């Protein structure tokens, strides 16, 4: 018996997608131009099953954000932290903003995506950095 924490469950499709954010990242686009995120078999907008991987735009714009003062137990991130929803063309991503305080962020602020490991949970953590 090892004392090491077991690896968190793999989420095929999501895990590879999140890892790719370190290199700029990708999203799925259907034949009708709707964006979505993996794991995905069907476009949630139109039902198309013709999905291709396309590169994310280099930067996105903050659509909304919140400075969170109360974190879930076991989350590992020390509050306060800033969670933002950021638009990248036809899709949006949710993540934690690095290197900018809440006071430095406004709707429209440009950021780029990246990925970290959450040491407390072992999960991938989507983050945004100043563009």
């Amino acid at each position, binding site marked *: 018996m090892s004392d090491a924490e077991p690896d968190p469950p793999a*989420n095929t499709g*999501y895990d590879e997608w999140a890892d790719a954010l370190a290199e700029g990242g990708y999203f799925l686009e259907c034949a009708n131009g709707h964006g*979505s*995120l993996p794991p995905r078999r069907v476009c*949630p907008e139109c039902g198309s099953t013709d999905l291709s991987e396309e590169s994310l735009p280099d930067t996105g714009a903050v*659509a*909304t*954000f*919140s*400075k*969170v*003062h*109360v*974190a*879930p*137990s*076991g*989350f590992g*991130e020390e509050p306060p*932290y800033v*969670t933002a*929803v950021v638009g990248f063309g036809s*899709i*949006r*991503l*949710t*993540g*934690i903003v690095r290197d900018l305080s*809440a006071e430095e962020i406004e*709707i429209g602020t440009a950021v780029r995506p990246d990925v970290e490991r*959450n040491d407390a*949970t072992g*999960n*991938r*953590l*989507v983050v945004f950095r100043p563009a």
Partner: protein
Amino acid sequence: MTGVRVAGVGLTPFGEHAGRTGRDLFAEAALAALDDAGVDGDEIEHLNYGNFMGALAERQGHQAPIVTEAAGLRCAGTRYEEACASAGVAVREAVRAVRSGENDVMLAGGMERMTNLSTAEVTESLAVAADELFEVRAGVTFPGAYALMARAYFDEYGGDREDLAHVAAKNHANAVNNEYAQYQREITVEQALDSPPVASPLHLFDACPITDGASALVLVSEEYAEAHDLDASVAITGTGQGGDRAALQDRADMARTPAAADAAAEAYGDAGVGSDEVDVAEVHDCFTIAEVMALEALDLFDPGEGVGAARRGDTTRDGDLPVNLSGGLKAKGHPVGATGGSQIAEMTRLLRGDHPNSDAVPDATVGLTHNAGGTVASAVVHVLEVAE
């Protein structure tokens, strides 16, 4: 299709019930509902039961048989789970079962036990209603998600924290006389504004409390009510449900809740009433901004007009359209899996005239209830009418 009557309602006081099991809470509400209806538990043909986080809070899954037994019923039960809309869905499915002729007399409601957990544990448990991969892992909490919506709303339509503080003060004022409310005390707009931040722009007094409680309704067919000479003057005449993408990031407009608009359109059409005929409403104000977005989705206020409704006095007890006369989730409390049933219990009492705040709406004949799950990825709306 037969009509559906609310024959009886039962509630536990909402608040902190230290040491009491969920099954005991639900049994209290169920027995109160049966007593209010004058219906024997043996008569109930099926239990529709809402519960969200029992597997986390009490390590108890498979709760329907547990609470059916605790309530002394002799029938089978089904648990419904759609986050904070769990009891709303349970009631809706009971309405559909009675209308179909499948059942004549049912018990519907829900229960949640929450205060035995720490605030951080409750925060973690409630976050389970969000998208695990795309939201929870990014640190989105339940208050955080509504904070993201509040900022999007302010950006699109205007409004500010003071508008929201008026929603909190209104609902606290309404709860003062409600014997079932967790916070039977008033707060001022200034107190709400000065409360500590939880997730900007929302502060502590924008949020509903953590609550233990249960709700139960005896729902019967018109024929059953007549045959058994029941005093069941309030009918559920409209029911509707709407859904949306689970993650906020996938919504076209984060300042709107189309699932509630869809549920409302279905319920209004079902009842054959227009939004302009609604006399009184109980809406899902888990956060003050949620009441604002509900008022607009229910077509009670135009987009951008909901945020000032409490401040203008439109939705206060003396206003044209009193909203959350029970105190709402904000002040009455929010045992998540019980709330949808509680709203209908309160509306029934308001329309029957036996609610402490019925005097605010003495001539009301049409009431609306709005119950939402997650960031309104699920919504259930019911129309209640005085039938006789």
